[in-house]
């Protein structure tokens, strides 16, 4: 392919900046002078992948080493995929424009179940065999990490190695081992040795057998592979690598700003939330580290917006000192500070003032359920009083738009709980109009995003049946009919997408066949409504003789062997069962800082489990 031809093709598609590379901060190296070429693949389009913090961290960290060159690869949008296939352009990395097949290691980050077909499509676009068993050589080695790989079984046939937990240490250990085997090493031997690294899961070293009823009977390690694989965590966030620079994109991406991570994990234990369990235990960065790293980032990238990243910003213990320290320089340097993931209950007036002194963005609250009973079931420990109180504070502070997040289809949910959603929105609207000092001449607007609950592994709800797509649609309709105010706007998630997400989340190894077939029948970019082909998916299940309802809508007994039971994320199954029972009694569990719930994550010897109280 000549440069001219490539240019011409790029100019024939939408947003060529997705594929042109050369952004400030991107790293070029001499490929003859590195030992390992790592293709960091994000299985979605550029705008999504470039917004992802994990990729920025690992990209910088790998490239900080002279012997590694890490480059970025994204899934092409459909228009460019067509162009690539018609012109035999293999999928390439943005930095060198070399095809994926020229790399030693191809690493995918799995953030979302609906990106599974994109992994296959990206391998296929590069002419790389999809199945790990068909890749006999050391290169390219296909690895994957990210939250979805806590149940990696639905893509286990395609990936050589999974990284469980946080990647900063284990990835480099694996790369070092790879270097030893790179020249003429035996891949099988390499995989067996890799499996001894903590946090490395080699699926091909495990045999899965099934019961007559289709449930998993056992997962048996071959040879000396460990019986359970334990996830890795970074113990000290002050000492671990953090990028001093980001690749700053030319084209507009979803989150185009400096991002500073302030802690990992979450103390809350909301029972539906996978992130709240798989990232345990909570570990914080210090105020000084955060301020210094964030300042460096703003200075090197030129960003005028800084976002603090964590699962629940206001749970940072020293949030006020932190904000004071940050505002010290952000105000002077005209950097606006945004604090996503604020919780309702500890959202103080002072905090609000600090945020709004810089830039006024919308207020977002995750109420999750419409009644107190159901919020107790899911352990979302906030009360209606707190929600209304915070809204009042916000309205008095000049806010007029409130965004609420809810879920439908939660365990034990009744129509009464759904009425609570529209009811709560009405109360918020009333609160606004009862306020004497409300912003003059402005109307209030309440937006409620109602997603559909999907039971996830390593949560207390991993045993629960997901409601059917039909039931999701009925509940959505019910909600629409119950709207009592024109100030409320409801938005929903697509029911078929939620259903499939549910299948993948708790799927076993047999789902690999379905994913491969659906991909071959044209499925890709399934997270994009305009590309999603639910009928093709259902056909793929039929053709492979598997029932998706078995995975999504079936209740699991506590004694059932889960496809991920041989993976250890710190939280014990006993704890999850205990929590599941409490949920059914609508009994809440205090957060990690109030009282240890004995989840098991203290096995890491770090973090909130050992904080002085």
């Amino acid at each position, binding site marked *: 392919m000549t440069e*001219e*031809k490539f*240019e*011409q093709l*790029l*100019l024939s598609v939408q947003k*060529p*900046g997705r*594929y*042109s*590379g*050369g952004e*400030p901060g991107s790293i070029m190296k001499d490929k003859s002078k590195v030992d390992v070429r790592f293709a960091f693949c994000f299985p979605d389009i550029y705008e999504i992948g470039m917004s992802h913090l994990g990729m920025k961290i690992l990209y910088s960290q790998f490239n900080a080493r002279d012997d590694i060159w890490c480059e970025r690869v994204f899934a092409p949008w459909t228009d460019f995929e067509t162009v690539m296939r018609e012109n035999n352009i293999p999928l390439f990395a943005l930095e060198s424009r070399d095809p994926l097949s020229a790399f030693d290691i191809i690493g995918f980050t799995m953030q979302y179940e609906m990106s599974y077909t994109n992994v296959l499509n990206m391998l296929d676009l590069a002419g790389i065999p999809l199945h790990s068993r068909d890749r006999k050589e050391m290169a390219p080695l296909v690895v994957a990490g990210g939250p979805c790989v806590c149940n990696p079984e639905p893509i286990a046939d395609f990936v050589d190695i999974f990284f469980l937990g946080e990647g900063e240490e284990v990835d480099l250990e694996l790369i070092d081992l790879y270097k030893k085997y790179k020249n003429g090493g035996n891949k099988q031997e390499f995989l067996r040795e890799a499996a001894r690294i903590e946090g490395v899961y080699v699926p091909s070293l495990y045999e899965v057998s099934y019961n007559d009823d289709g449930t998993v009977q056992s997962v048996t390690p071959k040879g000396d592979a460990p019986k359970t694989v334990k996830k890795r965590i970074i113990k000290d966030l002050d000492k671990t690598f953090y990028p001093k620079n980001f690749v*700053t994109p*030319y*084209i*507009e991406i979803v989150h*185009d700003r400096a991002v500073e991570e302030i802690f990992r994990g979450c103390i809350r234990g909301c029972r539906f939330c996978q992130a709240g369990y798989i990232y345990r235990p909570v570990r914080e960065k210090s105020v000084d580290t955060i301020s210094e790293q964030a300042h460096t980032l703003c*200075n*090197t*990238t*030129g*960003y*005028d917006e800084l976002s603090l990243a964590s699962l629940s910003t206001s749970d940072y213990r020293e949030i006020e000192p932190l904000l004071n320290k940050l505002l010290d320089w952000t105000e002077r340097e*005209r950097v*606006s500070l945004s604090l996503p993931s604020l919780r309702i209950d500890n959202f103080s007036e002072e905090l609000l003032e600090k945020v709004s002194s810089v*830039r*006024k963005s919308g207020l977002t609250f995750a109420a999750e359920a419409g009644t107190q009973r159901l919020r107790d079931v899911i352990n979302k420990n906030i009360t209606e009083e707190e929600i209304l109180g915070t809204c009042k504070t916000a309205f008095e502070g000049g806010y007029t738009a409130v965004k609420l997040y809810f879920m439908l289809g939660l365990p034990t949910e009744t129509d009464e709980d759904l009425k609570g959603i529209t009811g709560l929105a009405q109360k918020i609207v009333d609160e606004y109009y009862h306020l004497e000092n409300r912003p003059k001449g402005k109307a209030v607007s309440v937006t409620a995003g109602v997603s559909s609950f999907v039971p996830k592994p390593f949560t207390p709800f991993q045993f629960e049946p997901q409601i059917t797509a039909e039931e999701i649609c009925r509940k959505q309709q019910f909600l629409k009919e119950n709207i009592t105010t024109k100030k409320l706007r409801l938005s929903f998630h697509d029911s078929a997408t939620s259903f499939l997400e549910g299948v993948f989340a708790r799927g076993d190894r047999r789902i690999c066949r379905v994913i491969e077939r659906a991909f071959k029948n044209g499925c890709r970019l399934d997270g994009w409504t305009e590309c999603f082909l639910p009928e093709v998916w259902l056909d793929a299940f039929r053709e492979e003789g598997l029932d998706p309802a078995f995975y999504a809508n079936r209740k699991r007994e506590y004694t059932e062997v889960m496809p991920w039971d041989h993976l250890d994320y710190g939280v014990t199954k006993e704890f999850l069962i205990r929590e599941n029972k409490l949920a059914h009694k609508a009994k809440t569990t205090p957060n990690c800082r109030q009282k240890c719930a004995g989840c098991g994550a203290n096995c890491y010897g770090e973090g909130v489990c050992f904080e002085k109280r």
Partner: protein
Amino acid sequence: MRSVRIFFQKNDRMKYISHLDMNRFMSRALRLSGIPIWYTEGFNPHPYLTFLLPLSLGFESDYEMMDIRVLDDNFGNENVRAALQPVLPEYIKIFKVAEAQQKPGKIAYSSYRIDFKDLSDELYQKLGDFLKQEEILTQKVGKKGKVKELNLAEKITDCKLTKNGESATLYLTLPAGGADNVNPTLLLKAFGELPFYRIRRTAVLDAEKNLFE
């Protein structure tokens, strides 16, 4: 406070970056440069900058202009250049920093160079004949979606087609700016199928066809 016009080239990979994206990117570069620039006032203050004549996606250029306002009168044009160039990618080359001489409304024409890497003798002949016609009718879709009939032959000035071995180059000047703007791709599309070419803006001119400054 003084108004400063920065003249630069847009080369190579930057051609894939749209006008809107240039804005965002340049705003970051200006912050990085440390130039004491004026920020817009209002809800979300941001560095004031304006590109004088948006360049189409896919074009390179020898003559791009951007206006900024420098707060410190002692911060000279050379300082601006010295501060900004190092934080720009290699594909953007500043060639002049000066006080704005003319208002953006005075822009009247743009000159282009269109390079064909491989143009057959037959096509060369055909293209030459095509450009010599008195009438080159085409349709242009206006801002409101209205389709307008247009005679491109009236719009083209300073047209020259040269051939050098396999390659050929077309030079031409077309109306540009707020009042009348004709994109050279309109002309090339009116001709029909052509092999690969690159378009480069070579100059921006005023009504008297003097270099716009």
